[in-house]
């Protein structure tokens, strides 16, 4: 698989480390009343879709940036690649 890195252009996926679902960006509030429940959900449960999946890839063998890759889990086709920091800011995170 070739990942179109937003800054570096086409890179082989073997340069990357795979973390998992992009929902891991949305870390729950640890001080909330129901923190134990939301962290259980956050840490252990997955949608695991057959089809389009947004996921976190880390460019370990490159510029060490985190990317959000939109990839089809049935065909391995990659349709979109974003910098994870941009996605996190769009979701209201400070960094």
């Amino acid at each position, binding site marked *: *698989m070739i990942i179109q890195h937003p800054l570096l252009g086409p890179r*082989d*996926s*073997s340069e990357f480390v*795979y*973390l*998992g*679902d992009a929902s891991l960006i949305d870390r729950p509030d640890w001080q909330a009343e129901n923190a134990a429940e939301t962290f*259980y*959900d956050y*840490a*252990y*449960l*997955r*949608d*695991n*879709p*057959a089809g389009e*999946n947004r*996921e976190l890839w880390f460019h370990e063998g490159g510029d060490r940036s985190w990317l959000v890759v939109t*990839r089809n*889990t*049935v*065909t*391995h086709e990659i349709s979109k690649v974003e910098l994870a920091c941009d996605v996190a800011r769009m979701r209201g995170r400070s960094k």
Partner: protein
Amino acid sequence: MRYSGFTVIKEALRGHKGWKPAWRDPEPKQKYDIVIIGGGGHGLATAHYLAKVYGFRNVAVIEKGWIGGGNVGRNTTIIRSNYLLDGNEPFYEFSLKLWEGLEQDLNYNAMVSQRGIINLIHSDAQRDAFTRRGNAMILNGADAELLDAEQVRKEYPFLNFDNARFPIKGGLAQRRGGTVRHDAVAWGYARSADSHGVDIIQNCEVTGFHIENGRCVGVETSRGFIGAGKVGCAVAGNSGRLMGMAGMRLPIESHVLQAFVSEGLKPLLPGVITFGAGHFYVSQSDKGGLVFGGDIDGYNSYAQRGNLPVVEDVCEGGMALMPMIGRARLLRMWGGIMDMSMDGSPIIDRTHIDGLYFNGGWCYGGFKATPASGHCFAHLLAKDEPHPTATAYRFDRFRTGRMIDEKGMGNQPNLH
């Protein structure tokens, strides 16, 4: 029809005209006591034990394709019970004992071959870890034997013992481990279940669950509604998709694992060996092909094919372990979809929906577990309580912190 040496000779003399199909092809009934979704090894084994051990005859196995077309026909056929943790080892040892009596139980030749498995040791720390593992195995009634380099060399003289980076210092052997003809496992269980009255319904895809007042009363399928007192799901690889129809999210990701077979060679490997410094395991099939595999590809996938970087990685492991493997040509390679769970261990449990039961999360160790998985799932379906060897395989272990993490990797499914 009972198989025996006598019937083989009799049929040979009669031109093999008397053989009957090994199982029927029935139309689905309106309702069953128990419906099992998934006609793979685990689903068929569940049906066999439900009928034979627990006396349930009004049972159906429904399968979207043909039986044995999924992971039970795609694995590297190894059986063993060399686990460390208390939640696992009694279960896998139970499984190995069931393998030992499987052919008599099924009246089917599954080619169970206890040719032994050796996990190689490459450092002092690894020897300590394997010593501990071997002791844990013995404490749970399994067999284990610690070998030094010379003992390994006697059995496998061609391994790369003096590799500068990963010298072979010994091995942990389990003599009762080995290989089984994987397709025959599915066929043998199917034939036995069928002969006890279980309906095996192929080409029947589940499209939804019928849930009334928090109770599952049947399944919608491509061949119409099928009512059920209880529904058991055993579709590892596609668990997320299936349980999603019941509104459940699972502690599971689906990943692709590749396996490989070389061209046929003369007898070379007496047993199963695993490389302890990378991830590579190899045995030789009775047809002569070297059957080997390694790591999963590492990203979520439902495609039954992998990518080239892992092919290279697996072959590098093979070259480091036994350089002569470089002279053999790769004949076939394929991928299967694994339920990778959050701690690397499986789940056999009720769900929060009454009458709906789940068996999955086998990661890439499901084949060796087939008999015990079927037996324990049948026990759960029949008695509504877990089998004594499978009490740890619960959904709520993630919520309560009772993970069974053999590899110590945490909630990172692609690292187990």
